């Protein structure tokens, strides 16, 4: 059974359909990427999947119908989103942001302690900045905090929306290294990216989204050398 299965997903803002009939699936342990240019509907698709936007179609997570789960129930089941805008709690400290990341499993005190230690282990920078307000962090640190906060919920599936957005190349490399390493934790990942090369390098399987529709899909290694994919980024159809 697929971990996440999406069939015929459509999302509309008023009369404008931003996502039209998208279908995709993620198996446990997989890293799947959806790449595509700006405005293609990638963020809309993720926001609908996590339950922040109304949608039509069929979606299920571990067999459970997502139409009947709200955002919070998805988080409780280990289905989490790291949004494009990070959505951190700017006035709260790094430590409090992480603490709240585990809100959905607040009764599991021992587990949370362990997760917190793991996150600090994985992101030593966050450990150094524990007491600092989230709003004072740099772009790369913010992305790390967003990832760390999501990991506190002990996710089984992480949706990552443009984790490399606005980050310098060195930090992008670091972020993708971390994403690849999450697989070892047993976290499956749906990665939405414009940075096509890095995303395909990291992923097992890829989809290309253009103006709300999936136009190509295939094993990531194949897509990487597909001239059509290059064309949809740099032009020259």
């Amino acid at each position, binding site marked *: 059974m697929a971990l996440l299965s999406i069939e015929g997903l459509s999302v509309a803002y008023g009369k404008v359909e931003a996502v039209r009939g998208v279908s995709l699936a993620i198996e446990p342990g997989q890293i799947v990427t959806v790449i595509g240019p700006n405005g293609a509907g990638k963020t809309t698709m993720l926001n609908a999947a996590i339950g922040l936007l109304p949608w039509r179609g069929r979606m299920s997570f571990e067999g459970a119908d997502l139409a009947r789960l*709200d955002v919070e129930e998805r988080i409780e089941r280990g289905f989490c989103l790291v949004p494009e805008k990070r959505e951190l709690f700017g006035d709260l400290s790094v430590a409090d942001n992480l*603490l709240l990341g585990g809100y959905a499993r607040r009764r599991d005190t021992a587990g949370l302690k362990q997760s917190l230690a793991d996150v600090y282990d994985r992101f030593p920078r966050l450990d150094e900045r524990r007491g600092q307000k989230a709003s004072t962090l740099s772009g790369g640190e913010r992305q790390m905090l967003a990832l760390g906060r999501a990991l506190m919920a002990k996710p089984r599936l992480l949706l990552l929306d443009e984790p490399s957005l606005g980050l310098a190349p060195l930090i992008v490399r670091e972020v993708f290294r971390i994403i690849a390493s999450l697989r070892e934790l047993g976290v499956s990942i749906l990665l939405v990216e414009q940075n096509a090369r890095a995303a395909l390098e990291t992923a097992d399987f890829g989809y290309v989204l253009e103006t709300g529709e999936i136009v190509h899909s295939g094993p990531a290694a194949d897509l990487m050398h597909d001239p059509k994919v290059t064309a949809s980024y740099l032009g020259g159809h």
Partner: protein
Amino acid sequence: MDAEIATILAMDGIASGAIYLLIGLGLVLIFAVTRVIFVPFGDIAAFTGLSLAALENGHRPGTVGLVAVLAVLATLKETALLVRTRELHRLPHTLLFYLVLPLAPAAAIWFTTGSVLPMPLRIVLALALVLPIAPLLDCLVFRPIADASVLLLLTVAVALHFALDGLGLLFFGPEGVRTQPLTETVLDIGGFIVNAQTLLIVAASIVFSGLLYLFFEFTLLGKALRATAINRTGARLVGIRPTSTASKAYLLGSLLAGISGVLIAPATTMFYDSGFLIGLKAFVGAIFGAMASYPVTALGAILVGLLESFASFWSSAYKEVVVFGLLIPILLWRSLSLGEVEEEEAEE
């Protein structure tokens, strides 16, 4: 005016300011968490005072009926929602939170009617009785339109106040009441005669503001409330449910308003509609803090109390005019210090 009168007026002003302060903190809290400017907190304070007075006289407070009506309506609405989403397995949870818990204090009062309980118990019962009103109103009135604009929510809140006003008369009647003083001790501090009641009011507001600070700073729930206020989407994405955060915020705000009601009722005669002016004065304080800052709201509330006290010495008829007229310079100051506020409200 000599120094002695000035001192008395200042003491009085600080005492009423301390009362506005508690309600003002609740207003800021609710606005931050839900974007609702919850005008009826003043009514909640007045209802607490009226309930306490009824308990003192061994009567059944009208609040019992009000809470019962609201609890039944809320339960019906939530049950209908469960039927529609086919989630009837959550019915026991709904019944517990919307019917049993809100009605428990009312039931306790129902069975003890006639016997006059000791004062601390009466106060606890009056508070417990009033606490569910705001969360139930939130469920019935605000939850269905949680995404609406601030202005729409404000309109609803004002309309709600007038509904409560009318219901207040129905459930409490037109008589004004005053509760027994919490303490009748008079202290002599360095030559100044001070009413212990006044000190109690000030102490209570300091203690409860302090507790609120500790709650926000050191508890997970407090941090969850702050997180919701800072970033609603972010809060949802870590599993903080906006509806339950809102209920908790309303409970907390009601507790503050209820305490202020208990404190004010021995000093001022309370009528079913006394809450409006109390709430609005708390508001003037909250506007000082731009509906955002707790400490500045506290200062603003005290200032409103002082101004009111000195204004009533000058002319008691015009004290309301002076207090609400004060809003103009405050807004001017705010307008100059904040600059133009960037807001992108959706078209409707």
